[in-house]
């Protein structure tokens, strides 16, 4: 029996010309990649290549298995098939190369039949179907997150054409050569039968020859476009996933403000060269898929912010300005070598204003939904905050109400300008011990860090009261700092005042060290996140517990007993800084499950997909146009569940949701908003 195989370059005299084209392709690719890669050198240093094991594991999950993409039930499989089709067909071409150019006997026998014929055929067919799905999503379903520019349809059309012509070529060869193994390529075989039904053998030969060159040229064109289009992500996405940040999600990249000021560097990002090379790399890695845009709460309510265009506008700016910046840097270097040149006025090519709309910059709630959705792990929030840093620390140019909050934070230790409450009002009549009286944290289970919102916002004082009552009820030994407590600095850091944040952090770490505090209980996810993820860098290492976690424990161990299960159906709103930033989705649900007899109704967007309440990133202190209120949108989503109660675990979410629900229901009191502590306090009240 003959060994199954096929003749390479059948019917293609002069196929050697292909090599000439191939050399051109390589040159174009090399040039294109160099063009882009050289611009990344404009960035500052960043460490993104350590811990290869950990990086490879995640890369495997995201690039080979495409875990994040598969969250979308239609686009996920579509992309998986397209990308896998691309890879498998590319490998098939490599096998041809091994045989034709290196003379290796790889294209024969069972391998030829199973891989080179059948597998390739199947992957090609699936990729063709996926192409159709992609076209449908973009042009018929018209998903808003997808753009419809020239490059979008050219790339899609090229992909479809390459696959189609490949099948036709295969079919024609099978027909004309009467290939005995033709059925191993079922799709190609069918195409062959189709053409044989109306073309003579001679015509098929001729068509085959012409189409082969066409196929070759468009395939090369597609490859050549890679560095010049969004298709660059084929190369950059895997690298970007590999180089993603391994720092805690809740920590904004720190900066040494004083050193930067001394070195005459910009504080924050004024221009492209203030970013790290990885941030510039991020820009080129964007696939323009719009997943970030689709989940962005600010975008959803019609604000100027669109995270996709934060990336794309910066990218465009990089491509436009990058080359001249490189030339400038080169000139500066040679000037430094040849001694000081004539005083070249350093013109800053500002980002905020010409490239990024200041309104967009300040609209971000730092909710992290975009970063959670981005399949290539682009880091929008640090980039946005870095631009804020420059606006705040160097220009002092930012919304007035946010300025007031930070001035109050600096002068009075809390951002609630104009509050007439004192730090201790909430505790009146509760006999909560003060750390200053006890002299230290020894013998305590926890120091309860109340946070500014629960201390200064009259409504939220009830949360602190409920929690303190619960702790007393369960016999937890705790104390508070009272009027020694100050803001953790989270609002300052998210608004971009890194200087103020660091000052505040150092003072707090000192204070807590003096009292020997090790275990901190917070009722605010922002405080929780700051202690847990940001203070370690300032020497503050604590065991930090959020009240949802402690309440779960107290309920499970029976130290709190449910005496009157609450019968209201409840929906739960995930605070961003508890959920997405710290992956705590289950403790609050367990708490609600234990006390809420009425059952839990999930909103459509829950857990890591939750929609922000609108308060983060300093937005708590921003003025909002009534039609663009994130909290009202979230309130509508909560109301859509039909639940009579909205539970949450963050005082900022409380303020936002209560206001949102009030506006959406006309304040008729039909739906209440409660913190977990309040719900549990009511459900575990001793029967008397």
């Amino acid at each position, binding site marked *: 029996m003959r060994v199954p195989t096929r003749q390479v370059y059948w019917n293609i005299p002069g196929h050697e010309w292909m090599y000439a084209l191939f050399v051109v392709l390589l040159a174009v690719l090399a040039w294109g990649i160099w063009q882009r890669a050289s611009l990344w050198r404009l960035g500052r240093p960043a460490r993104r290549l350590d811990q290869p094991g950990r990086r490879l594991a995640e890369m495997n999950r995201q690039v080979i298995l495409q875990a994040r993409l598969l969250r979308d039930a239609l686009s996920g499989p579509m992309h998986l098939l397209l990308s896998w089709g691309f890879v498998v067909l590319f490998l098939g071409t490599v096998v041809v190369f091994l045989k034709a150019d290196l003379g290796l006997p790889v294209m024969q026998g069972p391998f030829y039949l199973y891989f080179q014929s059948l597998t390739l055929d199947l992957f090609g067919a699936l990729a063709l179907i996926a192409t159709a799905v992609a076209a449908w999503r973009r042009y018929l379903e018209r998903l808003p997150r997808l753009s419809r520019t020239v490059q979008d349809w050219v790339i899609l059309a090229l992909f479809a054409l390459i696959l189609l012509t490949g099948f036709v070529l295969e079919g024609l060869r099978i027909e004309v050569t009467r290939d005995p193994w033709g059925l191993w390529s079922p799709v190609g075989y069918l195409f062959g039968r189709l053409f044989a039904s109306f073309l003579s053998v001679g015509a098929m030969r001729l068509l085959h020859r012409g189409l082969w060159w066409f196929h070759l040229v468009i395939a090369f064109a597609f490859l050549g476009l890679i560095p010049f289009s969004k298709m660059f992500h084929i190369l950059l996405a895997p690298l970007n996933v590999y180089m993603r940040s391994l720092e805690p999600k809740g920590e904004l990249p720190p900066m040494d403000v*004083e050193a930067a000021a001394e070195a005459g560097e910009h504080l924050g990002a004024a221009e492209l060269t203030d970013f790290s090379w990885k941030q510039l790399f991020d820009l080129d890695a964007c696939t323009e898929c719009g997943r970030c845009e689709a989940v962005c709460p600010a975008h959803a309510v019609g604000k100027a912010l669109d995270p996709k265009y934060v990336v794309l506008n910066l990218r465009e700016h990089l491509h436009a300005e990058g080359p001249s910046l490189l030339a400038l840097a080169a000139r500066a270097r040679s000037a430094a070598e040849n001694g000081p040149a004539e005083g070249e006025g350093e013109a800053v090519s500002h980002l905020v204003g010409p490239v990024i709309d200041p309104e967009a910059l300040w609209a971000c709630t730092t909710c992290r939904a975009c970063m959670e959705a981005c399949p290539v792990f682009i880091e929008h929030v640090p980039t946005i905050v870095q631009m804020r840093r420059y606006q705040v620390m*160097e220009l*002092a140019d930012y919304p007035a109400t946010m*300025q007031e909050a930070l001035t109050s934070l600096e*002068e009075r*230790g809390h951002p609630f300008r104009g509050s007439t*409450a004192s730090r201790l009002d909430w505790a009146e009549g509760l006999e909560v011990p003060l750390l200053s009286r006890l002299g230290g944290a020894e013998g305590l289970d926890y120091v309860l860090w109340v946070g500014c919102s629960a201390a200064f916002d009259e409504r939220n004082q009830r949360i602190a009261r409920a929690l303190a009552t619960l702790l007393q009820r369960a016999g937890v030994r705790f104390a508070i700092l009272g009027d020694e407590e100050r803001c953790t600095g989270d609002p300052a850091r998210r608004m971009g005042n890194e*200087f103020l944040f660091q000052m505040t952090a150092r003072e707090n770490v000192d204070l807590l060290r003096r009292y020997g505090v090790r275990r901190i209980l917070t009722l605010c996810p922002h405080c929780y996140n700051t202690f847990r993820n940001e203070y370690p860098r300032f020497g503050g290492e604590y065991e930090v517990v959020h009240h949802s976690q402690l309440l779960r424990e107290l309920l499970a161990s029976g130290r709190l007993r449910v005496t009157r299960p609450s019968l209201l159906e409840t929906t739960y709103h995930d605070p961003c800084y508890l959920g997405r930033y710290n992956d705590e989705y289950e403790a609050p649900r367990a708490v609600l499950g234990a006390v809420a007899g009425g059952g839990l109704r999930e909103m459509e967007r829950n857990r890591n997909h939750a929609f922000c309440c609108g308060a983060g990133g300093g937005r708590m202190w921003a003025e909002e146009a009534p039609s663009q209120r994130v909290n009202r949108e979230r309130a509508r989503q909560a109301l859509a569940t039909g639940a009579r109660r909205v539970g949450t675990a963050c005082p900022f979410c409380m303020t936002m949701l209560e206001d949102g629900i009030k506006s959406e229901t006309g304040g008729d009191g039909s739906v209440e908003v409660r913190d977990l502590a309040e719900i549990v306090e009511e459900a575990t009240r001793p029967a008397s």
Partner: protein
Amino acid sequence: MPERADFLHGGLRMRLVVGLKYILDPEIPPRDFRIDEEARRPVQGRASLVISPFDENALELALQMKDRDPATQVVALSAGPASSEEALRKALSLRVDEAVRVETDPLGEPDGEQTALLLARAVQRLGGDILLVGRQAGDWDRGQTGPIAAEILGWPCVTAVSRIEAADGRLRLRHEGPDGLEVVEATPPLVLTVTNDEANQLRIPKARDILATRSKQVGRLSLDDLGLSPEAVPPRSEVTRLYVPVEEHQCEWIEGDDAEAKARALADRLMALKVL
């Protein structure tokens, strides 16, 4: 003594002196506000000290004039204890040209007249074309310092100024009078007391400038430097009693079967109390 600016003939090269008082935060929550009746002064406790709000407005006006004409010099001046240097540091972080404290420790807590004398003498010593102060301090609210300093200096005084514009070698001042706005034209030397306005909220310092102030010095002037002695500056007023007034509320329910009966009962009661 620095050269006096030639205001009328040489353009607007002015030297502005702004008086800053560092006071107990007026936004202190009422619950936390305590008074030491013995010492007849408020207790600071954990409350912060801040620049008196109208003085902030005065500083902002001066800085705005410097924005418009960079040749303008701004001097921040505070008469107070060492702690007031914090206020002066803040002023430095807003890029005033000089910051000077008049040491008041031998005087205890100077009253308005004493402060006016100290500021006036300091202005004479430091040189200046305009002295700007808040229209009244956010703690005692007496509003004497500016006008008395003008007396001592022998300069005209415009009170409750909210905006300043320079026009044809003169200053156009917006004065907030009881019946509305007045625009006053004046030429330095002048004393201005400043009131607040949405356009003169004090700007916030930039982190870079805050860092830069670390290497800057606050100048100091002793009574001696001003040619004064504690005896020469006696207080002209004395606080004899300081207390938080106690408000008493009494609540009484007016009974009645319907609105008319209640109204009648209310009217009777008000007449019995001699309110009506």
